[in-house]
């Protein structure tokens, strides 16, 4: 209709919002505030049919502006948040939580704690049940702050212990915090989700008080319960726990196995490979080779001398024993087309030699075995190494020469 270009309230506010958005993206806080001032009267209209209503918009935009604006104080910020809490009952707990996060970012731990306690005591008819998840989060974060208080007390106690003192009051307080923290942390980690920090803290508490069984159970749940989203950290925590408990290699390995599947480039893969290499079981050693090759597929590992040394060690061992060359063959099969350019170019040879001789040593060995002594990388590095009269490079040259035909076997 011809009236589509008519300027009305809705269109005017939409335009206003887009100006706010532009200003926010360009960090022009004054300008954003200017337009927000004009936008706020949207509150007087009902937008119940819209997906995001003006009250939510104002909350989110206002938060951003007040957080970043140079003339805004924390006091103003908190005042604003209080107003926002009254605006939408359906969002009450969410707003509380966000407020708490900002307070924490600003270092106001005590205020944050107060707000959390206040929010915890909030009740509003059926909304309380509807916002159950947010309530759990609030309780969890309060539990977290309790944990930090516990941690402080613990440190005081430990210091005092060193000096030979022992303050009962501090100890009591510490236990008190523990109880409060444990209750809440335990609750939240029952719900499927990503709760890394809560889990870590809770496990720390359990370990301190010697409840290793509970700790193990919690970590197992967190890592293996299929209802929880796949989370590499869960496996890392479990592994670290098992290590602390000095569990046998077998359980350590099984903990890391899934981590390898999820994140082949994880930094723990070195530990993993090291353990696997030493295993008596063939399958494990085979897995080890797979693990280290997979890790080196990633750009982040290209210059990791330690990783390369793991590979070198295993390759050497296989070549020398002349057993399981097919393992190398299998691994190399999918890599022979791109690893040469990725790892063993002449440019990289020069650079590695300049920057890290150990790295170039390890890589040269692998290159020499996988690609033969004629390959660019090996030739350059071994030549440089021998020129510099470094013993190990001479040994390297000899070794590769001796096993020169390996590359033919594995690339065939």
């Amino acid at each position, binding site marked *: 209709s011809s009236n589509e270009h008519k300027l009305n309230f809705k269109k005017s506010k939409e335009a206003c919002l887009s100006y706010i958005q532009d200003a926010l993206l360009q960090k022009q806080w004054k300008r954003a*505030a200017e337009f927000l001032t004009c936008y706020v*009267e949207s509150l007087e209209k009902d937008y119940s049919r819209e997906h995001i209503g003006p009250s939510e918009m104002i909350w989110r935009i206002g938060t951003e502006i007040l957080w970043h604006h140079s003339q*805004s104080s924390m006091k103003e910020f908190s005042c604003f948040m209080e107003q926002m809490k009254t605006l939408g009952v359906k969002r009450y707990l969410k707003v509380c939580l966000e407020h708490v996060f900002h307070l924490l970012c600003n270092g106001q731990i005590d205020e944050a704690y107060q707000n959390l306690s206040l929010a915890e005591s909030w009740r509003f008819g059926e909304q309380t049940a509807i916002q159950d998840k947010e309530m759990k989060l609030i309780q969890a974060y309060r539990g977290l702050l309790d944990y930090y208080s516990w941690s402080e007390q613990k440190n005081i106690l430990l210091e005092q212990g060193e000096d030979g003192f022992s303050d009962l009051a501090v100890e009591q307080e510490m236990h008190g915090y523990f109880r409060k923290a444990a209750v809440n942390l335990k609750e939240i980690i029952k719900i499927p989700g990503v709760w890394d920090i809560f889990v870590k803290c809770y496990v720390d508490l359990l370990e301190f008080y010697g409840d290793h069984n509970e700790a193990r159970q919690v970590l197992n749940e967190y890592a293996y319960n299929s209802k929880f989203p796949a989370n590499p950290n869960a496996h890392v925590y479990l592994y670290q726990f098992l290590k602390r408990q000095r569990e046998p290699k077998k359980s350590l390995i099984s903990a890391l196995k899934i981590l390898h599947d999820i994140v082949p480039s994880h930094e723990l893969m070195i530990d993993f490979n090291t353990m696997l290499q030493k295993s008596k079981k063939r399958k494990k050693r085979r897995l080890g080779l797979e693990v280290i090759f997979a890790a080196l597929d990633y750009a982040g590992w290209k210059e990791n001398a330690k990783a390369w040394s793991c590979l070198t060690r295993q390759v050497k061992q296989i070549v020398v024993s002349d057993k399981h060359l097919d393992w190398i063959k299998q691994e190399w099969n999918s890599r022979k087309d791109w690893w040469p350019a990725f790892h063993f170019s002449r440019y990289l040879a020069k650079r590695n030699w300049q920057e890290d001789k150990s790295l170039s040593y390890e890589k040269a060995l692998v290159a020499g075995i996988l690609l033969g002594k004629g390959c660019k990388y090996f030739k350059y590095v071994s030549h440089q190494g021998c020129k510099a009269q470094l013993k190990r490079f001479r040994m390297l040259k000899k070794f590769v020469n001796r096993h020169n035909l390996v590359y033919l076997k594995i690339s065939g």
Partner: protein
Amino acid sequence: RDFNERCAQCSEVNWGLTDGGRFYCRSCHNVTERTREVVNTDFITNSRVQTISKGSRKQEENDGGSEWYICEGFQLVLKKQVEALEALGVCPQMKDEILCNFWRCYLQKSKQAYCKRPAPETVKTLSVCESSTDVDSDPERPSLLHLLSLSESEGDLQTDCSFASSVSKVSESTSVYSGSVDGSLYLMKNQKEKLRMTMPMTLSFCYMALLWVREPITLSELLRYVVEGHIPYLNVFQHFPEKMKLCGLDLKIFCVESWPVYEEVFDQMHELAAFLDLPRFPDITESCFLHPDMLCMKYLMEANLPDELHIWTCRVVKKIGIGEVDFLTLVPGNKSTRKVKYDVLAVAVIVVVLKLLFLLDDHYEWLLSEYAEERNKNNTEVYIFYSGGPYFEFKKWYEVVKHSLDVKQKKLDEERAKYLWRCEKPLFYSVKNKSKVLKRRQMVVNLQNQFGKLSGSVQCAEKPNPSSFQLSWSEKNTDGSCFHGHSLKGVLQEKRGLLTAMNPDYWLCTVKLCNEKLCGHLAHYKEVEFPQSYHFVLGLFSFLLRVQPSYIHDEVCMIEHKLFNKKLYKKLKYNTVLRS
């Protein structure tokens, strides 16, 4: 007994009543047409139109409010508007004589007042004060929601239904329909028959009055003044007296949340003029501001175009006969003549002239510009001065005007995003959500203060002074940014003693005009189908008049078809239709 007007015959104030209820002058026995019901002709005070006869008038003490009718509200609005126009310099007769009479005539025709028998539906209404118990038993009584959904295009207020629906959930007996006596009825009335009064229509009234007295204010100017806040429109109701309580459906009638557009006000004005059975309006002659020759001069100046173009606009106007008194003067009810949009017509003439002289095909005008540039470079300043100004360079003009236009457009866009639609006076649908509304208002004010402080020093609360010209160019500027005195000699040539355009071609915007009655337009404008220069020129005037480019394009098509009427059928070489 309040009838204080002087008798037309003997100028005495000595009235009596005839049996028929009419006033007669006791001095000279002159019987007037005025009936008894016209008690108070004083337009100044907020006269309650006491002509609707109904049952007892209850003067409730509820909130100190009293009964009032919708048309009283509109009367107040009109009063405010015409006072504002007076402040802008419009002659005072407009208020006391013209608009006042128009309004009375309207009331009479729509049977809301000044007539013997009022509309029979005024009997059953609900007011704030009443709380009838048998609402549900009346099957004809519409629900609140139903009434809210009826009304004109204001979809925005419909979203406030949540307020209303919360009201209707409460027992209907205490629900509030309107603060006015006849609010709900007003919305129910059959629009076609009686031309229901709306807020946009108040502007139609104003425009009609302006046209009658031939004030030098065009419709586009009027609407611009409204948007700029010089004429009350948005939130006029905040000036209603305390005792006129506004709530419920009154909001639907008086609270606007959109700016009226030219087409709307224009069309309604004509409908209104016909409805009121007005006679032929005063003649628009050559000396009138609204005459195309005058308006063209104004817009040429505003568009920073050479004064010399005025000769050409006059020529076009003369050629197609749009300067004739009979063409320009409004005769209400005459469906055969095309309604004249004075301002749009004038700018369309300018566009056509530009096309005649510069072709505007994204090619020729730049060539001409280069030619002019060369000439200007070679001539000395003295020569330029004595030979009637430098050659007009289209390119330079384009750059200067585009720059200014972009700046103004950007500013306008920002202003449009920053409009504040609400005012201090809170609006609520019923007494029940009054506290909620007030709370919200308080919060809005708080937030405005908080973020207003953080806005920096950008606050400019002052309205700009009303000005007829949005763009101004001064010849005193030494940077050569004013083109009024420039010469068209670069684009003209002498042929047989006459100055004609060097440009031999012309392209028509459209070969065939649409049937306006069927699709509402003479043509359908799509930017991509026309040259950029043409689009630029349309855009410039579109900005000045605050109408859509297509609106001006229609008018251009109309002019072109008048101008090339004969040639269209002869199919001469002038019929080059250029489309990209």
